[in-house]
C-alpha cells in the first residue's frame, strides 16, 4: 500500500493531534495499540519476512526491560542508554537459538523460542541477588523525559508512535531491501535460493538480530511506562502469544499488518473484558479462539481486506472526481 505524500501528511497531523482530542484513559488504549504495533512489527521481521515463527519474543522483551532497569536502578544509567545496551544484549541471546535451528527445517525454531522464554523467566527468578527474583522491581516515578518517563499518557503516546513507525519503517526497509528479497527467495524455495548463493542461515540470523534488538528496546520503554517489572510480567507466554496473535491477525510478512493486528488485538481485549466481566482467563480464551479462527478462515491476515477497502474508497473517490473533469 503506497500512500501519497499529502495523504501521509494528513494522517501524520491527525495522529499527532489525537492526544489533544481524548481523555488520558482513551490515550492509554491508543498507547497499548502502538506499543503492540512496535512489538509486532519487530516480531514480523523474523516471523513474517523471515518465515520463522516465534512464540518466545517475550524473552528479548525481558532482556531489554531487565537490562535497562537494572542499569538505571543500580548504576544510575539513563534508560536511553540502557535500552541500546539491552538491545545489543538481545542479539547474542537470539544467536543462541538461531544458530542451531536455522539450518533445520520444521518446527525446531518455534520450539526453541518457547523454551528460551521459559528458561529466561526461570533464570530471572533464580538469580535473586541481581534481579530481585519474583518480587520484581518497582521504579521511582520521576516523570522526567531524561529517565524515559513522562508525567502523563500523552507523553508516552508520542514515544510509542515514534517507535511504532520506526519499527514499521525498519520492517519496510527489510521487506524491500536486499535482505528482504533474499528472505523471500528462502521462503519460496530454500534449495533454489541456496544454490544461487544466498546464505540461509546468515539471512535468517540477520533478520532475527534486528527483530530481537527492537523487541528489547520496546521492553525498556515498557519498563519505564509500567514503572514496575517482574519475571512473570515481562517474560510470559501470554505476552509472546499476544505478539504472535497480533502479527497473524494483521497478516504475517506484510508491512502494515502489525498496525492492523495490534488494533484488533486491543479492541478485542477491551470487548472481551467487558463481555466476560474480568473473569480470569476470559480474554485469553477469546484470544485462543481468535487464533484458531484466523488460521482456519483467513491465514493471510486481515490487512488485505483493509487494503482492498481503502483502495475501493479511493477508486470511488477518484472516479467521481475525474468523471466531473471529463464531463
Amino acid at each position, binding site marked *: 500500500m503506497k500512500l501519497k505524500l499529502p495523504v501521509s501528511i494528513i494522517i501524520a497531523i491527525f495522529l499527532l493531534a489525537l492526544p489533544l482530542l481524548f481523555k488520558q484513559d482513551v490515550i492509554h488504549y491508543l498507547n497499548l495499540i502502538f506499543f503492540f504495533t512496535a512489538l509486532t512489527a519487530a516480531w514480523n521481521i523474523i516471523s513474517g519476512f523471515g518465515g520463522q*515463527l516465534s*512464540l518466545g519474543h517475550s524473552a528479548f522483551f525481558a532482556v531489554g526491560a531487565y537490562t535497562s532497569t537494572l542499569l538505571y536502578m543500580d548504576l544510575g544509567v539513563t534508560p536511553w542508554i540502557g535500552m541500546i545496551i539491552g538491545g545489543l544484549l538481545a542479539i547474542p541471546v537470539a544467536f*543462541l*537459538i538461531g*544458530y*542451531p*535451528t536455522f539450518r*533445520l527445517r*520444521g*518446527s*525446531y525454531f*518455534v*520450539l*526453541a523460542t*518457547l*523454551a*528460551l522464554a*521459559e*528458561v529466561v523467566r*526461570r*533464570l530471572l*527468578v*533464580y538469580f535473586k541477588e541481581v534481579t530481585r527474583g519474583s518480587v520484581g522491581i518497582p521504579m521511582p516515578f520521576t516523570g522526567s523525559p531524561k529517565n524515559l518517563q513522562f508525567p502523563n499518557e500523552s507523553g508516552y503516546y508520542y514515544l510509542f508512535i515514534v517507535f511504532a513507525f520506526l519499527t514499521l519503517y525498519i520492517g519496510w526497509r527489510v521487506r524491500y531491501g536486499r535482505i528482504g528479497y533474499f528472505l523471500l527467495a528462502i521462503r519460496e524455495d530454500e534449495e533454489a535460493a541456496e544454490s544461487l548463493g544466498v546464505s540461509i542461515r546468515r539471512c535468517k540470523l540477520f533478520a532475527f538480530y534486528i527483530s530481537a534488538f527492537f523487541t528489547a528496546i520496546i521492553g525498556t520503554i515498557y519498563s519505564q511506562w509500567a514503572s514496575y517489572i517482574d519475571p512473570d510480567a515481562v517474560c510470559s*507466554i501470554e505476552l509472546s*502469544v499476544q505478539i*504472535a496473535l497480533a502479527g*497473524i491477525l494483521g497478516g504475517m510478512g506484510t508491512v502494515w499488518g502489525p498496525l492492523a493486528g495490534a488494533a484488533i488485538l486491543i479492541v478485542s481485549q477491551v470487548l472481551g473484558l467487558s463481555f466476560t466481566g474480568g*473473569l*480470569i*482467563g*476470559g480474554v*485469553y*480464551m477469546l*484470544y*485462543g*479462539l*481468535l*487464533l*484458531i479462527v484466523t*488460521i*482456519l478462515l483467513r*491465514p493471510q491476515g486481515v490487512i488485505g481486506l483493509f487494503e482492498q477497502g481503502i483502495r475501493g474508497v479511493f477508486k470511488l473517490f477518484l472516479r467521481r472526481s475525474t468523471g466531473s473533469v471529463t464531463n
Partner: protein
Amino acid sequence: MEIFVIQAVLNGLFLGGIYGLLAIGLTLPFGVMDIPNFAHGEFVMLAMYGAYFLWHYAHLDPLLSIPILIAAFFIIGLAFYNAILRRLIAVNASTPARLLALAGLSIFLLNFAMCLWGTSHRMLKADYTMSAIIFGSFVIRVPLLVSFVGSMILTALVMLFLHKTYTGKALMATAQDPEAATLMGVNTPRMYMICFGIGIALAAAAAPFLTTFQVIFPTIGMPLTLAGFVIVIMGGLGSVIGAYIAGLVIGIIESVVSLLLTPELAWVAIFIVFVLILLFKPKGFFGKWIK
C-alpha cells in the same frame, strides 16, 4: 552423597516413564502427519482434572479411571481433529499454520480450565499416595513405582498395536509414505484421524499416574508440552521406543539437577540438552519412522 544421587536417578527414571508415555502421544501425530500438537499438555491437564473429579465424586482410584479417560479422550481427540485439523490437512496447510491452530487450542483450553476451576492447586489422595518402599538405603515412592510400571505396560501395548494390528500397520505405512499407503488401499484420512485420537488418548493415559504424585493446576500443561517436544526430538520424530527412552533420560536429568543444584535450574539443563541435540543430532537418536 552417592546414595542421594542414585536415589535421584531412580526417582527420575520413574518420573521419566510418564514423560515417555506422554511423549509417545506427541511423537505419533508428529511423525505420521506432521502435526506438532501444541495442545498436548493441555489435554494431559484436562485428563488430570478428569481423574481428580472421578476420584472426588465417584471415589474411583486414579488407576481405574485410566480406561475411562482413554476412551473419553480418544473421542475428544477425534472431535477436535474434525473441528480444526481436518480442514488444515485437506488444504495441506504449512506446519507453522497447523502449529498455530493448535497453539490457539492450547491457550483456549488452558484458560477454559482457569475459568471453570480457578487457579488453585488440587491434590488427589489415593491410598498409596504417601506410601513408600524402603529398599536397603533407598526409598521408593509407591506412586512413582506404579507410574513407571504402568508406563511400561502402556508403551508395550502401543508397540503391540502398531506391529500386530491392521490399523497399527496401516498407520506406520502412512507415516512412511502416504501416497504409497493410499495406493495399497489404506484410508489415509481415517488414519490421520485415528492417529490424532490415539495421541490424545495417550495424553489422557499419562494423566492419572501424574495425579498420584503431582498437584493439579491449569498451567501445568505448557511445561509438559515443552518437555514432551524436547523428548520427541531427542528420540527421533515418530519413534515410539526413542520417545520412551528419551523420556527416561530427561526424567533423570531433571531429577539429578534438581537435587544437585535447584529445581529452577532443571529447566535450564533440559534447554541446554535441547540446544546441544539441535546442534549435533537434530534427527534424534532413534530412527525416522515409527519403530
